[in-house]
C-alpha cells in the first residue's frame, strides 16, 4: 500500500504548490467570471453569462484581440526566423561567437521595465535619440509612439530585441544536436548551402521550432510590461493588448467579474491555439534524426 503511495507522496509537495498558485486561482477566476464584484463589496452576486456578453459586445475587447493578434502574427515569426538565422551563424565555438551569444542573451535577463523605460526615451518624438539621429541626417521627426501603426511596430521591435537572445540559445542547443554526419552526407551528395539548410537543418530543428513557437505565441498573447510602460495601450487604444485591457478592467475600473471573464476567454483562446498548432504542426515534428 505504502509502496503504491510513495510516488504520489513525493509528488505531493509540488502538486500542492501548483494547486495553490495555479489551479485554485484558475478555478477562482472561472467562478468570478460569472459574478459581479469590485474587490470592495462584501457580496459577489451571480450574473450568469452577463460578463461574457458584455465583453463580446464591447469594442475594446475586439480591438484588444485584433491588436494582440497582429502583434503575435508579426512578432512570433520575426523572432523565430531571426533567432534561427543568428543561431546558425553562432554555432561555432569561437571567442567572438561566445561573446555574441552573451551579448544577445543579455536583454533576456535585463529588467523589462528598465528596457521599456530606456526605449520609451529612445523613441520619444521631441527628445528621443532615434529622432535626433534622423534629424541629424536631414530627415524630419517621426512620431514613433504617437502614430498607431508605428507605436505597435516599436513595441514589436522592443519585444523582439528583449526575447531574441533566449530563442537564439535554444536554437543553438537544437542545432548542436543535429548529427554532423547528415551534413557530411549532404555535402558528399553535392547539396548546396541553402538546400542543406532547408532539407536538413529546418526539419531536424523542428522540435525546437515547435517548442519556441508554443512558448512565444503564449508570451505574445500575454505581453504586458513593455506595453504598460511604453504606451499604456495608447495612442487611443492602438496598442491595447488583451492583458493590458484585463489589468485596466480589473484594477483600474474595479470590474473583477469582467476582468475574470477576459482572463477565462484568453485562457480558452490559448488552449485552442495550442491544440490547433499541435494538430497542424505537431505531425511535422520528428524527434529522431
Amino acid at each position, binding site marked *: 500500500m505504502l509502496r503504491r503511495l510513495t510516488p504520489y507522496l513525493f509528488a505531493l509537495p509540488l502538486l500542492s504548490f501548483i494547486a495553490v498558485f495555479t489551479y485554485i486561482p484558475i478555478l477562482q477566476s472561472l467562478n468570478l467570471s460569472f459574478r459581479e464584484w469590485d474587490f470592495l463589496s462584501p457580496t459577489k452576486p451571480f450574473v450568469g453569462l452577463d460578463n461574457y456578453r458584455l465583453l463580446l459586445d464591447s469594442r475594446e475587447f475586439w480591438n484588444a484581440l485584433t491588436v494582440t493578434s497582429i502583434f503575435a502574427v508579426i512578432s512570433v515569426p520575426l523572432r523565430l526566423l531571426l533567432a534561427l538565422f543568428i543561431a546558425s551563424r553562432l554555432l561555432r565555438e569561437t571567442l567572438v561567437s561566445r561573446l555574441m551569444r552573451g551579448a544577445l542573451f543579455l536583454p533576456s535577463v535585463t529588467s523589462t521595465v528598465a528596457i521599456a523605460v530606456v526605449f520609451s526615451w529612445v523613441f520619444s518624438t521631441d*527628445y528621443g535619440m532615434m529622432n535626433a539621429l534622423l534629424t541629424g541626417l536631414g530627415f524630419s521627426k517621426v512620431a514613433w509612439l504617437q502614430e498607431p501603426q508605428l507605436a505597435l511596430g516599436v513595441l514589436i521591435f522592443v519585444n523582439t530585441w528583449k526575447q531574441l537572445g533566449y530563442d537564439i540559445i535554444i536554437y543553438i542547443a537544437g542545432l548542436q544536436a543535429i548529427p554532423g554526419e547528415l551534413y557530411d552526407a549532404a555535402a558528399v551528395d553535392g547539396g548546396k548551402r541553402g538546400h542543406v539548410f532547408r532539407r536538413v537543418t529546418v526539419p531536424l530543428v523542428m522540435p525546437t521550432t515547435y517548442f519556441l513557437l508554443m512558448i512565444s505565441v503564449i508570451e505574445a498573447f500575454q505581453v504586458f510590461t513593455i506595453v504598460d510602460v511604453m504606451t499604456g495601450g495608447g495612442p487611443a487604444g492602438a496598442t491595447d493588448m488583451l492583458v493590458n485591457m484585463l489589468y485596466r478592467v480589473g484594477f483600474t475600473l474595479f470590474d473583477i467579474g469582467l476582468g475574470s471573464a477576459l482572463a477565462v476567454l484568453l485562457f480558452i483562446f490559448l488552449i485552442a491555439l495550442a491544440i490547433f498548432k499541435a494538430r497542424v504542426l505537431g505531425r511535422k515534428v520528428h524527434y529522431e534524426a
Partner: protein
Amino acid sequence: MIANKYKISVAALVALLGSTVLASAEIKVEFWHSFGGVAGAALDQIIDNFEAENPDITIEAQEIGNYNDIVTKLQAAIPARRAPDAVIMEVTRYGLFADRDVLLDLTDYVEADPLKDDLYNFAREVGVFEGKNYIVPFNSSTPVLYYNKAIFEQAGLGTHTPLKTYDDLLAASKQITEKLGDDGITGIAAPGQFARWGLIMDNDSDLIDSVSGEILLDAPNTIEAYEFMASLVHEHKVASPDGVTKENNGRDAFLAGKVGMMINSTGNYGRSTSALGDDLVVLPMPCNKVCAVPIGGAGIGILSTSEKEVQDAAYKFVSFAASPESNALWFSETGYMPINKYTPEQPLAAAALAEKPGIGVAIGQLDFARGRPRPPVVTWMRASEYDMWQAMALGQRDVSEVLTEFAERTRAEAERLKR
C-alpha cells in the same frame, strides 16, 4: 553563585516580559502614502514630530507609489485582509471606497476636533461625500501656470506677457516654438489630466458637475476647451505629442528647460524650483471665460476594518498632520497649499512665502477654487478619459464626436454603478 544566576535569570525574564507588555501597549498605525523625495522627507519629519509627542503611537509609513498604485494595491489588500489602517486617497477617487464602507466615517471625529474650525472651507468640503466626512485633506493643490523666464526672454517675450486667456497661451506658445523650435524647445507642455480639468473650468464648464452630478463631458464649453487643448498639439504643434501619450514627459521636458510653459499642480513647485532655480515663474491659472480652478491632491482616510484604538490613534495623526505647525512644514517644503487658516502665520510658512517667489500663488486662487465631483463613476471616467484625450490631441478623431460618445458611455456607467 547559583543564587546570583537565579536572580539574574529572574530579572532578565521580568525585563523581557516588561518589554513585551510595553511593546503591546504601543499602538501601531500602518499608513500608506505616495510621497518620495522632498515630500517624503517632509512627511517623515511630520511623523517624527508626531511620535515625539505621542510616544505610545508608532506610524509605520510606507510609500506605495502614485495615487493609482495605492488604489490598486488597496483593492487587492482588502479581500486579503492586509489593508493598512490609514491611507492617502486622491480627492476624486475616495468616493467609491466611502460608498462601499471601506473608509471609516470620520464625521464624529471631525466634529469633536477643534481642527474643524481651523480648516479652510475648501479643505472641509473636499473630504465630504454624501454628507459624511471620509478623509481629511493633507496635500491639497490647484493647478498653476509655470513658465521658464529664460525661454521667454530668448523668445522675445517679457515678464508682462499676458497669459490670461486661451488666445494668450496660444500666442506665447507659438512665439516660443517659432523662435526656439530649432533648438528643440516647444511652447507649452501638453496639459495633463489635472491641467485639462482646470482649463475646462476656466472655460466655465466641468467634466461632471460637482454639486448635481450631471455629466458635462459633451457640454459646449467642455468641447470648446478640449478643442483648444487638442489644437495645441496636432494643429498648432506648440506642444509635444510626447506629453500626450505619457503625461509626465511634458513635465520632465519643462524641468529640463525644453518647454516654455506648463500648467501643473502646485505640488510640482519643489521640483520645479530645484530644476529651474530663478528662471521659474509661477502665475495663477488663466481665466478664459471665468476664473475657476479645481482642488486636487489627496487626504488621509482611515480604514473601517482597523481596531477602534488604532482608528483613534490614526485620527490623532490625521489631525496632527493638518495642524498649522505640520501644515506649515509641509507647505514650505513641497509647495502644496496650506489647508489650515493658521498655517501662513507659522514662521516656516511665513519664511517660505517671503523667500520663495510663486509659492503663494495657489493661495491667491482659493477664492475661486472648487472641489471636484467624487461619485463612484469618476474613477471610471478619469481612467477612460486618457484614451479619449489621446485620440483628440493626436488628431485621430473629431473632438465633438469623441466627447458626445464619451458622455453617453459615462452616463451609462453611472447608471450601472448606481444599480
